């Protein structure tokens, strides 16, 4: 590996991190956006080359400050990491490119540099969590990304964004503090903060009560931050009242990064060492995942606000991810992991279409969408295709993950049949809630007084939306890359199991 490639792992964090103060200092309108987009594009390029490196068999381990782990902080990139990095940086880039016009409307010029600065910090924080191999360092970057996302969500035009942000802030801080307590208890029993070192040393004290309590605190804390049902209360309003571009960014990656930490921590540190922990983990998560799929989809079917409908659908989709993980098999895990990628594609494209709709339709209740298909045909077509991917129709990305999930469940015997049934019912429910939007947009006649004729979203936004939609189709037809990454990731997670 060349010297440049060696530094890439840390640059993934440093580039967006250091771009933030620059962005804040920029004055003229538009420049802050351009700088943020450029830095975001650079971060995406780094993620792509890291992925290429991982696929060609490189392993990135970087000792920050030149101090070897466990004394210093280590950064490492493997298949799972690179998949998440692609999602995080890609979502940020797409949302920034698409969001310029709508953010200009929502945020006054004077505060735009601050807003984009916060955006870069959110990106850097998420990237920092993903690459870090140190339990406490993960907490620090978790806080960078959380604080920055509170700012982004509070920028929403509706005043309801403020209580939603406050709720997110309180629950997010509780989740992070629970995580911190767990890390503290493990540190107390092992004396180390490095995850790999922890995994080795926790073995000797695996039967001690503080370690068991730590496992509980870490799982609950991260589940709270990942909006795992029933700890999802902060998510619907936060996603609904945030500016559209922010929703695209955060819905695609914020909760998934927390799930990633949960997987990494639990499989690496606990499952190989704590006797019987894998069954506790699986028995804890599987019922929650099944309930999440059924109940959150049910709420989405009843919901009248388009963004909140999609937000509840996100809670259900987190259920699918956790369901795959809780099967604890190689196929199940890779189904869960690939759904992180595919759901980011589908939900990202859906929220991009929502951003297009939001350019001309205020309120975004389903009633307001009447006749939208005539006014914005391209947007609605994009929405329909992305919706198909969310449902899991063959030929779209969503199908790939559901197929893997079902085949993993079938390998489990009679329990698997029940799981498959829930997956199918959940998909049918997704058909219903996507159909409700389609029905409103295509088949209801517009209200009197609404403008006639075609009135599409700005071209830039539309192009990005369609790029995301085509991504759904491409990765549905040629899912080689995410499958390869997720299988490698699942294998490396499972190797710690006894």
């Amino acid at each position, binding site marked *: 590996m060349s010297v440049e490639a060696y530094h890439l792992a840390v640059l993934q964090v440093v580039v967006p991190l250091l771009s933030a103060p620059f962005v804040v200092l920029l004055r003229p309108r538009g420049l802050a956006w351009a700088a943020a987009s450029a830095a975001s594009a650079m971060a995406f390029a780094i993620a792509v080359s890291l992925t290429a490196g991982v696929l060609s068999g490189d392993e990135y381990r970087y000792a920050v*400050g030149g101090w070897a782990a466990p004394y210093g902080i280590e950064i490492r990139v493997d298949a799972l990491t690179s998949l998440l990095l692609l999602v995080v940086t890609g979502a940020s880039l797409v949302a920034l490119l698409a969001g310029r016009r709508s953010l200009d409307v929502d945020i006054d010029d004077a505060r735009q540099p601050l807003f984009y600065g916060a955006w870069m910090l959110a990106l850097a924080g998420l990237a920092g969590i993903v690459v870090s191999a140190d339990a406490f360092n993960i907490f620090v970057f978790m806080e960078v990304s959380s604080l920055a996302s509170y700012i982004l969500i509070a920028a929403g035009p509706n005043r309801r964004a403020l209580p939603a942000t406050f709720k997110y802030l309180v629950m997010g801080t509780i989740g992070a503090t629970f995580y911190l307590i767990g890390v503290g208890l493990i540190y107390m029993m092992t004396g180390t903060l490095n995850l790999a070192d922890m995994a080795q040393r926790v073995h000797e004290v695996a039967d001690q009560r503080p370690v068991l309590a730590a496992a509980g605190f870490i799982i609950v804390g991260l589940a709270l931050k990942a909006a795992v049902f029933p700890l999802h209360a902060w998510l619907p309003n936060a996603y609904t009242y945030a500016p559209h571009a922010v929703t695209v960014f955060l819905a695609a990656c914020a909760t998934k990064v927390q799930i990633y930490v949960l997987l990494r921590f639990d499989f690496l540190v606990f499952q190989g060492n704590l006797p019987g922990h894998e069954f506790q983990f699986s028995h804890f998560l599987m019922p929650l995942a099944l309930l999440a799929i059924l109940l959150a989809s049910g709420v989405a079917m009843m919901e009248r606000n388009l963004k909140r409908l999609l937000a509840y659908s996100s809670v259900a989709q987190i259920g699918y991810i956790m369901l795959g993980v809780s099967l604890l098999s190689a196929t199940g895990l890779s189904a869960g992991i690939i759904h992180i990628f595919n759901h980011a594609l589908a939900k990202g494209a859906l929220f991009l279409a929502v951003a297009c709709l939001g350019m001309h339709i205020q309120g975004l209740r389903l009633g307001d969408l009447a006749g939208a298909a005539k006014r914005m045909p391209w947007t609605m077509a994009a929405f329909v295709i992305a919706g198909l991917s969310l449902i899991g129709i063959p030929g779209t990305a969503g199908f790939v993950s559901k197929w893997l999930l079902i085949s993993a469940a079938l390998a489990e015997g009679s329990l698997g049949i029940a799981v498959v049934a829930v997956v199918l019912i959940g998909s049918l429910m997704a058909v219903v809630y996507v159909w409700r939007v389609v029905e409103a947009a295509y088949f209801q006649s517009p209200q009197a007084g609404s403008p006639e004729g075609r009135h599409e979203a700005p071209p830039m936004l539309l192009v990005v939306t369609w790029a995301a939609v085509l991504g759904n189709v491409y990765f549905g037809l040629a899912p080689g890359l995410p499958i390869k990454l997720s299988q490698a990731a699942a294998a490396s997670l499972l190797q710690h199991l006894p």
Partner: protein
Amino acid sequence: MTVFTVFFIIFLLTLMVITALAIVQTKNLFAAAMLSGIFSLMSAMIFFLLDAADVALTEAAVGAGISTVLFLGALALTAENERAGTAGRAAALAVVTVITAVLVYATFDMPRLGDPNAPAQLHVAPWYLEKTPEYIDVPNVVTAVLASFRGYDTLGETFVVFTAGIGVLFLLGKAPVGQPKVSPAMTFAGKTGLRHYQIPRVVGRLLIPFILLFALYVQFHGDYSPGGGFQAGVIVAASVVLYALLEGEEQARQALPAWLLRLMAATGPLIYGFTGVACMLLGGNFLDYSVLAHDPVHGQHYGILVIEAGVGVTVTGVLISIFHSFAARGAK
């Protein structure tokens, strides 16, 4: 630890629990803010007794100083009394009882306080104590770990402060819709400060230079004794808050204009980050200060000096900006 210290710790801890209960109980938010300041002072004492002098200094400056100022600034803009009571008390109490039971159950396997054979004392920590004189050569090991061994965490911490600064400027930078209701005391202090009160004014003005001097001592003596950039920044911010109280918000803004504070808030993280980048360009890893000079130990010294300065600049800029954001909201 003598028996006397142990009993003093137990006494303080019990007092902390009582204070915490009082904080939750009282309906008067002003009293709650003050009590939480007292709570912080007591925890600072505990930290000092438990051999964490740096943390004690920080907790005293942050918990009793800055957070009380922030609470007062926010209370002046919102409400002084809690109107509604509690909701779902039974459910909350049930959850609380369960978690407490789990935690107390877990404690019985924990190493006892001060146990020299606790795992945390046998792994990693001894390496820091042993190698600091050799690699970093500063007397305060906490500073060595903070700034070098785990310097990447501290970089993150600096950016957390920066994020908070951006956030408050962003949220309170938008002009309020309609006329906010402002407490008279806040407006009064905002316009003229305490100019008509000779004694506080004279003594306060006398003290400010000494406070700044102390901040510089804390900043640059952090290698030798408790302290460092963060604590120094907090102390500088405290002196500016004092100045604004004495001379009025306007005067303080003129002394340190908003653009300068914003520049400071953004420059500090850049100083820190680009020190790391410079290390990379000189052939080391990110934040590996050893390459900054011919002698690795000297390099570490330079690196720590520069990044501590970066932290200090950030914290000063951000905290004063936050204070102004709250205070100016009232003055309008």
